[in-house]
């Protein structure tokens, strides 16, 4: 197979070029149509073996990857940390080497440690796709967010996007930040300072302390999930107050000077970072994000497997 246009692995968006990111998004467009068919399957990755190695609980991302793999006819195996040799104390590198010894082609990894996907990619021959590593990156989520915004605005250049909430602990925020900046969007963050990285000012983003200011400025809000354990760890006083001060509510959006596209990577805490009538409202693209997730992951699998981007239209059969 030819060398992939996006490299051996997809570990994050920070080190991709704008051209590579655009290539993935462009490739996702034709693949999106496959999922609209009655028979949602093409033979593109027939004979390839993909392991979904999930050390952290995940429903949405794992299922999305699995659909993407199956719709491209790959053989897939799901390995969860609990019930596997991992729970018996096996190291990450041993787990990976054992899988590779069974002759696989790709690993999709979700892990609680930042850098875990890179660690694996440096040590095995198979392609590695990062499905979320600690608080580092979640590149396919970033890509599906970019695709969703591009569908809405036609371009990302100059679009004003605000990432709201727990940027400090969010891998989604980091992937969004790199991807948006590379494609020319204006990026802001908004949240309590205790949930923003101390060095946020060095990341080339606008920082809003109040959600009202963010709403005044933004064309799109990507509302990050507030992990409930952050309150227990003392980063914020209470979920109730978080909603009162930082929550994206209908009342606040109604005062905005324009319609604002509402995004959320899920799973949502309704009534905390986002109110139900916003999540279910007319400007929410949250379910489009989910749909685009499958298409983007199909594109990534296809490109990493050495598929030629110009043949993506034909590859969908």
């Amino acid at each position, binding site marked *: 197979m030819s060398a992939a246009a996006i490299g051996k692995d997809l570990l994050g968006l920070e080190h991709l070029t704008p051209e590579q990111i655009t290539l993935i998004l462009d490739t996702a467009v034709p693949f999106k149509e496959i999922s609209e068919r009655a028979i949602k399957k093409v033979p593109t990755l027939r004979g390839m073996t993909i392991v979904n190695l999930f050390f952290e609980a995940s429903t949405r991302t794992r299922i999305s990857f699995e659909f993407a793999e199956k719709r491209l006819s790959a053989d897939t195996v799901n390995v969860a940390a609990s019930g596997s040799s991992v729970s018996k104390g096996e190291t*990450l*590198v041993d787990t990976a080497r054992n899988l590779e010894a069974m002759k696989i082609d790709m690993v999709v990894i979700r892990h609680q440690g*930042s850098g875990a996907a890179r660690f694996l990619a440096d040590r095995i021959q198979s392609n590695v796709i990062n499905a979320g590593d600690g*608080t*580092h990156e979640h590149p396919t989520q970033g890509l599906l967010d970019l695709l969703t915004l591009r569908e809405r605005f036609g371009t990302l250049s100059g679009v004003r996007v605000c990432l709201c909430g727990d940027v400090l602990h969010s891998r989604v925020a*980091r992937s969004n930040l790199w991807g948006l900046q590379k494609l020319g969007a204006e990026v802001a963050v908004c949240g309590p300072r205790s949930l923003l990285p*101390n*060095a*946020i000012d060095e*990341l080339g983003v606008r920082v809003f302390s109040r959600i009202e200011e963010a709403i005044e400025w933004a064309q799109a809000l990507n509302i990050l999930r507030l992990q409930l354990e952050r309150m227990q760890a003392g980063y914020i006083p209470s979920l109730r107050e978080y909603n009162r001060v930082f929550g994206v509510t209908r009342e606040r959006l109604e005062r905005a000077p324009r319609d604002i596209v509402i995004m959320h990577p899920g799973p949502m805490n309704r009534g905390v970072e986002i109110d139900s009538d916003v999540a279910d409202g007319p400007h929410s693209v949250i379910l489009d994000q989910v749909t685009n997730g499958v298409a983007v992951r199909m594109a990534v699998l296809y490109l990493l497997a050495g598929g030629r981007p110009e043949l993506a239209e034909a590859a969908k059969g």
Partner: protein
Amino acid sequence: MADTTATPLVLLRGGRVLDPSTGLDEVGDVLLRDGKVEHAGGSLGEVRRDGDLTEVDCRGLVVSPGFIDVHCHLREPGREDVETIATGARAAAAGGFTAVCAMPNTDPVTDNQAAVGFIIRQAQLAGAARVYPIGAISVGQKGEALAEFGEMIGAGAVAVSDDGKPVASAQLMRTALEYARAFNIPVADHCEEPTLARGGAMNEGIVSARLGLKGIPDEAEEIMVIRDILLSRRTGGHVHLCHMSTKGSVELIRWGKERGIRVTAEVCPHHISLTEDAVEGYNTNAKMNPPLRTAEDVAALQEAVKDGTIDLVATDHAPHHYDEKEREFSDAPNGIVGLETALAVLVTHLVAPGIISYDTLVDRMSCSPARVFGLPGGTLRKGSVGDVTVFDPTAGWTVDPAQFRTKGRNSPYNGMSLTGRAMCTVVGGRIVYRHNA
């Protein structure tokens, strides 16, 4: 001496004899007899061979008082798989160290006189660099009850420290500084405010923000630095601050010294040669505590070594098993090996760029540690202990951890080209290491 054991004589011939403690700097000879310095300085000509004479050709080399590392982790007892006192003492000798101080965070902890005695015995059996035990400040290093300083000092300990852990309780630190005064020993503190540092894996800054790793802010160190300095002022006790890593700490130490407070401080070779950028790619061999900081911190620490605000260089040699470092960054243990690269890192990063002279290097590696910790050596004065380091200041080499004497392979300098290496290490008038010999 009995005729069965001829008087051992070591003659270090023709080197640049450099001893800041006496102001000596001339090409000449050093003669050691019966474990002591008999002569250091001008050329001796013919030496009467009234015993077993070993002559070492030192032309082109520097001959200095033996290097002393006041901060290393030899892992025995408890983790003999990663280092023993014997392998650590041999690694020290290979790095040009004639003596090292062993931190007490072993298993069990060195918090009583019997444990101190064990280390001394193992070091004698090793017959390489001297090993001086450092006793724990608190029983089990738990930060609660004071350990028995008096008995530990009596058994041969040279200082107390809970290194590896901070002394979280200011009251315990105060008591330790007061109690230590009776024995005139330093209380060495690992400065880390635990609630600020908790869960941190690297320096807090732009790199940690990008890599998604929890950061340790400068203030975690600096808050404890100023606390310790103020407690030293209150008690009159000698506080020694371990492995300083920030520009702010340097400023605080300067503040303390200007006021005559009994504070001394050390810096590690890695904190004056590497920055947080070394973590890029989640390199676990760049993970240590305190973490690598920024270029601004490195510059401030280099300046502090030069002007003496930082008294001495210590390695914080911390071997770990390969498997423990070969894992996800946040789960990997802190620490790197340093005994066999310290000299070369200082020559390459401080002497070669003209920041310090060899004179200052020898002072910070030998004279000053001896002075601060009250140890024998650190001088070539006639009659003093025969601990001498001979090093080649121009030898270039590429770091290959597989060649180390230490069992540890966890070095951030792996593959780097450095200049300067120990050629011959003499402890008590006996050669314990010769390069390529």
